[in-house]
């Protein structure tokens, strides 16, 4: 994994500190070209990995990437699935069965034998595999070396004690896509314990890690201890803690922590992209 990963929250009006900013972002990134332009700024700053949710609009971005193979030859995407809102809305409207019908490729109950049998026999892991395939369709022909499970699902499975499902995700991604599985979580220490007990060694885990202790469930001290003593590949996200810490302080804190393989950040402007990347380089060099 590259040291710096570029995130997508800003493109989809996800803002943890202000509903007003969220609306402004929604206006700014209305056109796909605005997203592409911002990705270009990130690439100019040396960031070639885009970590993004499987939002419908990402399909358009993938199309542009596929159509410009020379420009994007070193470009990688880390898909994060599922885009939960899509399914939540569908379940409200169509019910669980209707949702599966809509999202699973082919005719779920007819020609696609695998789906029909999986549904009737309540083989949920098989259904999950079909949904992963559905989500991965948009990335065809694009390098996706790491595929993530979104925190809403990871953490729900964690709370429900459904370890086998987490492991099944890990195995399927490896087998079918020749990719590594990653897990996004707001509960890093708990998740790591469960993954380790399920026999997953050195997992890729992306979680909130910041100087303010924001969204670090169980506390900052426990996270620092986990980073120091456990074996896993950490990606730090929400490093700016929604603006609670100054960028300089925020990046210095994360760069000095042991065992952080990558730092994920998102930004809407060229200035902010350049500022954050150069701060990371500056504090990395000082180590």
């Amino acid at each position: 994994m590259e040291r710096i990963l570029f995130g997508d929250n800003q493109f989809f009006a996800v803002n943890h500190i202000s509903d007003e900013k969220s609306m402004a972002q929604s206006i700014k990134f209305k056109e796909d070209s605005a997203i592409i332009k911002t990705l270009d700024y990130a690439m100019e700053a040396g960031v070639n990995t885009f970590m993004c949710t499987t939002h419908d609009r990402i399909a358009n971005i993938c199309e542009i990437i596929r159509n410009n193979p020379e420009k994007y030859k070193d470009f990688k995407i880390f898909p994060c699935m599922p885009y939960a809102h899509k399914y939540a809305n569908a379940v409200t409207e169509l019910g669980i069965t209707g949702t599966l019908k809509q999202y699973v490729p082919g005719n779920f109950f007819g020609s696609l034998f695998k789906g029909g049998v999986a549904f009737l026999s309540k083989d949920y892991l098989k259904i999950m595999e079909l949904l992963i395939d559905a989500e991965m369709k948009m990335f065809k022909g694009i390098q996706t070396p790491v595929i993530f499970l979104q925190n809403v699902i990871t953490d729900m499975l964690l709370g429900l004690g459904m370890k086998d499902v987490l492991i099944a995700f890990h195995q399927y991604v490896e087998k079918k896509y020749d990719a590594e599985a990653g897990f996004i979580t707001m509960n890093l220490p708990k998740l790591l314990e469960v993954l380790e007990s399920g026999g997953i060694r050195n997992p890729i885990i992306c979680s909130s890690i910041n100087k303010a202790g924001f969204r670090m469930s169980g506390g900052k001290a426990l996270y620092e201890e986990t980073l120091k003593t456990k074996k896993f590949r950490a990606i730090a996200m929400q490093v700016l803690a929604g603006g609670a810490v100054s960028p300089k302080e925020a990046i210095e804190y994360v760069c000095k922590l042991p065992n952080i393989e990558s730092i994920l950040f998102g930004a809407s402007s060229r200035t902010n992209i350049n500022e954050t990347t150069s701060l990371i380089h500056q504090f990395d060099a000082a180590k």
Partner: protein
Amino acid sequence: MGISHLAILGAHPDVQVVGVCDTSKMMLDAIEKYSSFPCFTDYKKMLQDAKPDAVLVAVPTKFHAAIVEELLNQNIHVFAEKPFCLNPEQGAPLVALAKQKGLVNQVGYHNKFVGTFQEVKRIIDGGYIGEVYHFLGQAYGPVVVKAKQDTWRSNPEEGGGCLMDYASHVIDLINYILAPITEVKATILKSIFSKDVDDAVYSMLQLSNKVTGVLSVNWSDETFRKMSTSISINGKKGKIVSDANELKVYFKEEPFPEGYSKGWNIRHVTDLTPEVDYYLRGEEYSAQIDYFVKTLQGKVPNSINSFESAWLTDKAISLIRKEQR
């Protein structure tokens, strides 16, 4: 059912989940197969076999009253989802019963566990913006953004509609931060895409302390990515504008709360939210369940989101509906 509630309970170190009951076969099968929770299809059988100390009720609102009554009669502590009941007449005897039996009772109005709104309450209670003369409570989001969709949420007899399901959050917040709504001047309930229920609520309210204000809620507004709840309050010495993420407060003159100064001040939920032990979709969801558990353990009083406060919200809902123009 409340799959998120179940996950939060499952992760809580002081809670042992002794039973899960649901009518969705698909959901229950998945839980049975991949988690270790005992599953039931009949809640009365669950009570009999599992003998729980407390039960979390997350079923459609129309079933709340009967189930909660049964639980209280069996001396079981109750956490019920919001709104409490279909009308205040249903809820009143339950408030009394819980009190009489000395059972812990809580309703899931999670906004009271959001850091910014807690801070708003602190500022108001301290009298820092002076005499309050107006408020505006709002919530917008993309729940029903096109015609069709027929679920219990679209049936007015079952607790569907924007007023009961969505505006109730804002009403409860106004009741909590300022004072209970006791009079309604006028209401517009608007159906935008739904056939049988309201999709928007606009209402002019008066509180028990005679303060007046406006309620504006619309769940058919797709310009919002998810539910956005906010409250603004005008006082003679200042003004507060707050949503779940950001609190803006203007002070005209001293005294200010510690750390604040004259003019505009901004605080973010990141600074105001205590860490939780397990996070799913928002600190407030874990915090409210943790509060319920702590009440059971006798560590905190049963004062936030009691049946009684949720019943006052049900009462306000019925007043708002009655004054429909």
